[in-house]
């Protein structure tokens, strides 16, 4: 599988863990990545809709966290922890700032996955 980004020092995503879990089953990896991209599209859309509601933001990211930690750079997971904490404390302005940084990052990941892992060509 073409995965040009995963071995760079600051990789966007990695399929290593999925390959391990799936024992190298590429169909499984592809299925998981497809589900991941769909889930993240829903996540970003819901985050945008509920941007000003800390409880909703917390709940949305809480749900997305396990998948992100399986695939993405740990830095992104760290950002989620930060947002979750800010949301829990109702530090809304700072939370919004962090969510606005998070959304393009995750979109960058899903675009890269779609382009490198899921395109038919």
């Amino acid at each position, binding site marked *: 599988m073409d995965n040009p980004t995963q071995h760079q020092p600051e990789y966007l995503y990695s399929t290593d*863990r999925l390959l*391990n*879990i*799936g*024992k*190298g089953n590429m169909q*499984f990896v592809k*299925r*998981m990545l497809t*589900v*991941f991209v769909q*889930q993240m599209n829903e996540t970003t859309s819901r985050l945008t809709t509920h941007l000003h509601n800390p409880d909703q933001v917390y*709940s949305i990211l*809480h*749900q997305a*966290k*396990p*998948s992100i*930690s*399986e695939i993405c750079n*740990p*830095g992104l*997971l*760290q950002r989620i*922890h*930060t947002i*979750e*904490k*800010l949301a829990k*404390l*109702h*530090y*809304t*302005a*700072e939370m919004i700032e962090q969510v606005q940084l998070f959304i393009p990052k995750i979109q960058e990941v899903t675009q890269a996955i779609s382009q490198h892992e899921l395109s038919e060509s």
Partner: protein
Amino acid sequence: MINYHKLLQKQITRFIGSEVPTGEKLLPLLKAINDSYEAFENDRALSKRAFALAEKEYLETNQRLKDEISIKKQSLKKLKMTINSIEPDSTIDVNSNEDNILDIVNYLNLQISRRKEAELALRSAKEEAEKANKAKTDFLSVMSHEIRTPLNAIIGMGHLLFKNNPKADQVQNLTILKTSADNLLLLINDILDFNKIEAGKLELEYAPFSLIQLMRDVKDGNQLSAADRQNEIEVCIESDVPEFVIGDSLRLRQIFTNLVSNAIKFTQNGKIQIILRQEQLTETEVTLYCAVTDTGIGIEPQKLQLIFDYFVQASNTISRNYGGTGLGLAITKNLLSLMNSDIQVISTPQVGSTFYFNLTLPVVSEKETETNSPAVMNDADLHQARILLVEDTLFNVLYATQLLDDWNTIVDVAENGVEALKLIKENTYDIILMDLLMPEMDGYEAAREIRKATISTPIIALSASVSINVKSKILDAGMQDYISKPMSPSELLNKIKKYI
């Protein structure tokens, strides 16, 4: 020949003569008289001894009494002196030889009554103070939250106005508005943190994070304010510092941000360094030397220990010239204390300051990655164990079923608590894996319902954050254990094996 008592013998000689008295009636009389004389003699000897003993005892008792009286007098004198030193206006005269012990007892009784009244008053004052302190804390907390809401609106409106191509003079006003609002928000956040720390309600979280990313975030977050004062921020992380550790990244970020923003505030045209150095590394944890140094105005030696107290700054001039409330460093110290660390400072006026601390954090080991490898998991066989997976996120369902299928299990999936209850009533399972946050019926309620139905199948909670509160909620709901998501295959396998 009878040996009469000496006195009787004398009297016989005197009245009868030297011849031996005879006669049937006289002899018994003389014998009785002789016995009386003998008895008298014995009694006299006994009395004499008794008198001698009594006299000795009398002398000893007398001496003891004298000693006791002397001690009593001394004690009374000391007591009087003490009373006079406590209350010079008291009516008790130290030099009086009068045995006014009743006055003293009365005086002491009065003092005891007064002491009791004072204790009651103190207790009542303490309770009042505690109530007032709680009221203050509650008030601060409520007010801070109440202020935050409109403040967020102000900040949001400020952002919008900035985007609407403001005129040059408006830009300046908007900048002032933004800066003031941001500062106010920081202050409110500090007050909220201060309240939480005071109330012992601040709980740390533990999750993996990248130290490098964290330091980068701290630097980026302070870059603009550093540039405003022509300062440079440098991050120096030694190469042997592990990148990923486990801890509360948000609070660590707060600590470093506090220290760096302070350093920027007191430095002009200088340099701020964030230093991370490995002090000790074991298989499970790393001890880091962390420091923030600056080339700023420094702190006078006598002020060094005061700066970590709440609402204290090195001088009033500082709060006038540099702003701030004096909460930041106190919060930093308390946060580090919660992390079992202690912040120190060395400083030279007009040269600069270094704030430093050692911090021990668990490291994210490579072992976890290894145990997740197919090789380790290949041999697992759960012998057709029946497992109910209650999970609403497709990604997590696929992930878990992939693992469970490999371990020779039969898996049913329910998307929420309601579906799970239905399946549990129709089937028998060896174990239930229960997500906590689900639509319709969450994991806690589902677990309670299962236990209400007297079904004792072991339930393992699946949670994306397992804080202390969540853990106790999980156990209270009747579940046996928990696994944090993302699931480590080895942890999942071990937990299932433990309960089936």
